[in-house]
């Protein structure tokens, strides 16, 4: 998956986790929590969805990398580079 593919995938996950939110104007540089109503359980949902969809294991110490779209994509790029977009 490319960085763009990963971004689309994260948006798809966010649509499931935060169904009341408008994701059309999300700012990739800004922390998710500063623009969306997300709590710690929601971030665990992101981790869980990546695990279910792509078998990616994210260590707890790395959860901080999921703060914003940019940091998430940067963190996931090497982990998802060999995954073929469905």
């Amino acid at each position, binding site marked *: 998956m490319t960085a763009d593919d990963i971004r689309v995938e994260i948006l798809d996950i966010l649509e499931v986790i935060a*169904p*009341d939110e408008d994701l059309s104007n999300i700012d990739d540089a800004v922390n998710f929590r500063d623009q969306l109503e997300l709590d710690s359980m929601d971030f665990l949902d992101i981790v869980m969805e990546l695990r279910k969809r792509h078998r990616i294991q994210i260590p707890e110490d790395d959860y901080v990398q999921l703060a914003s779209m940019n940091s998430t994509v940067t963190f996931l790029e090497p982990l998802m580079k060999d995954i073929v977009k469905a």
Partner: protein
Amino acid sequence: MIRSAQDDQRIVITGVGLTAPNGDNLADYRAALLAGKSGVEPYHIRYVGDTLAGVCHFDELKYQKRKELRRGTRAGSVGVYCANEAISDSGIDWSEVDPTRVGIYVGVTEHGNVETENEINEIKAFDYDTKVWSHHHNPRTVANNPAGEITLNMGVTGPHYTIGAACAAGNAGMIQGAQMLLLGECDLAIAGGVSESIHTFGIFAGFASQGALAEHDDPTSASRPFDRDRNGIVVSEGGCLFTLERFSDASQRGAKIYGELVGYAMNSDASDFVLPNPKQQARCMNMAIERAGLNTDDIDLVSSHATATSSGDIQECDALRRVFGDSRSTLVNNTKSYIGHAMGAAGSLELAGNLPSFEDGVCHPTINVDNLDPECELPGLVLNEPRENSPVEVILNNSFGMLGINSAVIIKKV
């Protein structure tokens, strides 16, 4: 004795919030009961396949966001809907209510089966790898979940918990709420019962294995208590929560009062896991009547528990004969014939559907009785057609459950 001359020791119903398979508020539900409208429909659930159920169609988004629905449980959602509807119906100005003085008491037959089955089904696709087991599982399955979700939604900071009482739970929730008001633990109780049971295949499979799951070509005719050809239970979901207040508080604010809880009782059979015990059911009814300071001939209407199992209906009729003898003045009806067995919600839903009889003087019938089982014959049975011009001042509502748990509540017109 529950009855007291002191108005702060009298407990009254001031609001009703409900969702049933045939109505999502009291007016629609009552209209369906008087029109003989069933809420049973074809239903499919994994592993069991095609069956029948009582399905609710309330607007889940009326009081919850999509995210709350996703995170919570069906029982929680039913509870949130009913609690908000009850407050709305009560005329209470919620913005003026002290949230620390509100208690939430929700009866449940079971809780946690739905989410556990869902998670096992989910990890099955991952070769049972528990690493994909949801972190939402525990907050969804803790026994207080359906009551706790109401507190989260409404900002209630008083006590909340569920009352596990099998199919006596709807009555048990109401009794608990009344007791907490009498103890001064809260000033407003939101109490009754809820059920999400149609979403667990286990309850269908369990009743089928027991030979007690209803089957019929016409879903609306499947639930047929007292009928000779009854063949079991229609599993249903639903909920009904009441706002309960002390009479002194309710009258001071000029509240509409549906009725007064003048007597109640709960007891146990101590005789069988499943089979009911008419001797103890009769004792339960008699205790409630005695505590209300009434005689059996003061009871105008008995809302029966009968679930349409072959033996259970006969046992309850036996108990009713022991209490009411050959009385023709005490009418007997049954709501499960319309909505199936709403499990934890059954007791409160069945009571709610009869409360309007205080005003309209009509007793809704038991429907689907084409051939009355002679062993279920009672002089006061109201069958297939509403009984009009039947002044109702006192209702006794029965709810019984597995492990031999019995409950009866008595509501009097105020």
